[in-house]
């Protein structure tokens, strides 16, 4: 068994009103920033899955991302593998 650490990044889909992103954008002039646009604010979850393989672990993350961590009607998600730890030889691969 190995442990796989993932990040799931969730953002409002293009075209969906993102009032948080808009509020951040509206604050930019107060910071004298004029060359930043198209701000979108989302959410990030990190989690560890214990599984035999990365493919198996990724399946679990995919279904969680779809069912729980995002609402597919309004949000898109992207999955990142951060770290894989094999419990047999305790080698640790940090990917990000």
């Amino acid at each position: 068994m190995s442990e796989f650490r993932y990040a799931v990044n969730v953002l409002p889909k293009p075209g969906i009103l993102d009032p948080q992103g808009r509020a951040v954008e509206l604050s930019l002039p107060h910071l004298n920033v004029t060359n930043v646009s198209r701000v979108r604010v989302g959410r990030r979850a990190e989690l560890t899955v214990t599984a035999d393989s990365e493919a198996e672990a990724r399946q679990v993350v995919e279904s969680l991302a779809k069912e729980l961590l995002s609402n597919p009607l309004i949000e898109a998600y992207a999955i990142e593998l951060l770290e894989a730890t094999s419990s047999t030889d305790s080698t640790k691969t940090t990917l990000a």
Partner: protein
Amino acid sequence: MKVGVVTFPGSNSDVDALNALSVAGVDPITLWHESPDLQGVSAVILPGGFAYGDYLRAGVIARFSPVMRGVSEFAAAGGHVLGICNGFQVLAEAGLVPGALLRNRSLRFACRMVAIKPERLDSPFTRAATGRPIHIPIAHGEGCYYADEATLDELERDGQVLFRYVRGDGTPALDPDDPANPNGSLRAIAGVCNAAGNVAGLMPHPERMSESILGSDDGMQLIRSLVESAMEWEAAGRPASAKAAAAVEARR
């Protein structure tokens, strides 16, 4: 006849809903979120509040609670379910009603009186309504109704839009920036029902305007509609609506 009100951790309008049901003359009972057993109730209200702290997204954690298994089965069997405010958010997350509730366009928590108008008076949730604007309060941060354009067209075509926010002259506040549209809802939608017509959700709180001592009993039009529909359903021997079962089955 018993009508159940679900209490999730963080529900805060459950007692108001129980009271409104007493005013309507039925036995209100509390349904605890940890049990899928609906105790033989004839209808269910999912009340307002902040179920499970509204963490992640409003309503999403509640969607996976044991009681929602019972509620889904009840809905599939043709029973009437009304979600109010947070209850609407839970139903939307569960896919029992179409669409999603986004953060209010203003980014502000909106807590004030609004006017909504029933789109039709032949639905189980509006049958006791007068058809005039109903003045009841809202209290939510995520009430901006969203569905894609094709879905919105479909909902309008199939009569699934039950309530819209209206202006003083009774016309819908279609512009999302109209002050009479308190959260920026698309097409001024305040409440919708599923395709089978037995599950509905709305953001405003009818149960908080249930007695004249509270300022008005305008909201009782909707509570009485639910109670009448539940009574009729019981009197008919709990007919399983094939349409309702198919709609819930399609979600699985």
